[in-house]
């Protein structure tokens, strides 16, 4: 694999991690002081979004790691 293609995977991974970090921040910000049912619901939804973002980041990491293995170990 060319370096350019590896770079693309690296950038895709970094972008996915950025979105994940953003999802964590969003979730954290939704932990409101009023302890209401509505706030709790929104906070839960943000947690689901964080889980999705984490899965995307992990998949991107795996894809990048798999390609790196091909370059470094030839398999």
């Amino acid at each position, binding site marked *: 694999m060319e370096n350019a293609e590896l770079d693309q995977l690296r950038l895709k991974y970094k972008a996915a991690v950025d979105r994940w970090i953003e999802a964590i921040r969003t979730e954290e910000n939704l932990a409101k002081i009023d302890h209401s049912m509505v706030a709790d619901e929104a906070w839960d939804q943000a947690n689901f979004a964080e889980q999705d973002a984490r899965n995307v980041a992990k998949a991107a990491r795996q894809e990048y790691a798999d390609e790196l*293995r091909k370059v*470094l*170990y*030839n*398999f």
Partner: protein
Amino acid sequence: MIVFGAALVVGLIYTVLSLSRDLQAERGTSIFPYLLLGVALLVALGFEFVNGFHDTANAVATVIYTHSMEPHLAVAWSGMWNFVGVLLSTGAVAFTIITLLPVELILQVGSGAGFAMVFALLIAAILWNLGTWYFGLPASSSHTMVGSIIGVGIANQLMNPRQGTSGVDWGQAMGVGRSLLVSPLVGFFMAAVLLMICKAIIKDRQLYQAPTTGDPPPFWIRGLLVFTCTGVSFFHGSNDGQKGMGLIMLILIGTVPTTYALNRAVSPAQTQDFLAVSQQTVQMLNTHVEPSAVVGDPRDDLTAYIRTKEFNANTMLALRQVISGIGDETAIYKQLKNVPSNMTRNFRNDMYVVSEAIRLIEKSGKSTFTADEEKILANYKKHIDLATKFIPTWVKVAVAMALGLGTMIGWKRIVVTVGEKIGKDHLTYGQGAAAEITAMATIGMADYWGLPVSTTHVLSSGVAGTMAANKTGLQWGTVRNLALAWVLTLPAAMILSGFLFWALRNAFQS
């Protein structure tokens, strides 16, 4: 690679030609047995194929991650040595696996129940091996096979409730239990201690640091790693390959008994020798038969002894009767190849129960025989085993091809787990060598001292041990998954094979 490819092509041609030549001796009118034989052989070879790629990591993970061998060369090398290991195996282990199966199913292997047994345990083992492979978990193929056998045994006994579970070899389950405790400890501590000894003796820092380039390790350590990879591959072939061979022989005996139930290559001289040994054995047993002993169908009595392991005066009489009968019939036919087709299965079954009964008498340690008499029995057993426990060369070649090919396909998942997901740091040259030497030494210990250890468990634990010794930490998520898979292998294989046996037995009956 080219040599191995050529060997595969030659092996395939040889296998097909040998099988078709053997089948010409069968004079059946129905095509069903041949179809059944084809499917059963494919399933049995499929088991070896899956076994190949499931266990490749044991041999190649360390050479790949230490850059001692190029990955594709490593798996081809491992495949070739698995191939050689199967071809050079004696076949002695092949029939050991059969002795763990319920004796009544062995005796009726050509029936629906017999086929249900073979298919159930092979399919269950394939499914569990495929499942653990899919998740990249290096579980023990031997434990899977033992679990499948026990599962069939339990299901068979539950379907015949009068017999209880006396036909189930619980000793095997205990052996797996011991292995579950012993293997990780042996692997972890032996590899860790080996690495620490190396660090104390060999003061080359390069050996104990993660490689920063793709350069191979120093020549001597590279040679050591390639040697251990070769050894593990060879012994895997010579050991695991035989499990498939034993089951293939059961399939052949069940579908085409005329050709495979008895070893037709036994010479007239060997037959004469057998008759003399048979007479000597009958005379010796006569001195042990009690006058009060009674026997119904002697083979049934011996079968009951094999199942329950309860020896009594009637068993001795039954043993003498069956041995005497085999001798008389052999004298009539002069040679095994002259035994009529419709009698081969009965002939074989008589020989099988006698051989098993003698084995159990010897193993029980409670026999009343003198040392000389035990020698006579052992000599007799050797002779009948020559007639029933044989493996045609084409079976070895077919198994060697399946295992060798399997080794070269689908190996990546478990290799990645062993190389990247057990420890928190990259495998160093020293760690790779310590773990692989431990794995190879374990195979030797298991063979020579009968230690209940699994190479798969030892290697994975060995890698973990070297990580702990290097103070680099473990990935506990992977360790937890491995432990779970290892503990679940036996019960999962038991449940799978038990259910499959029940379903297939009902399907074959309807």
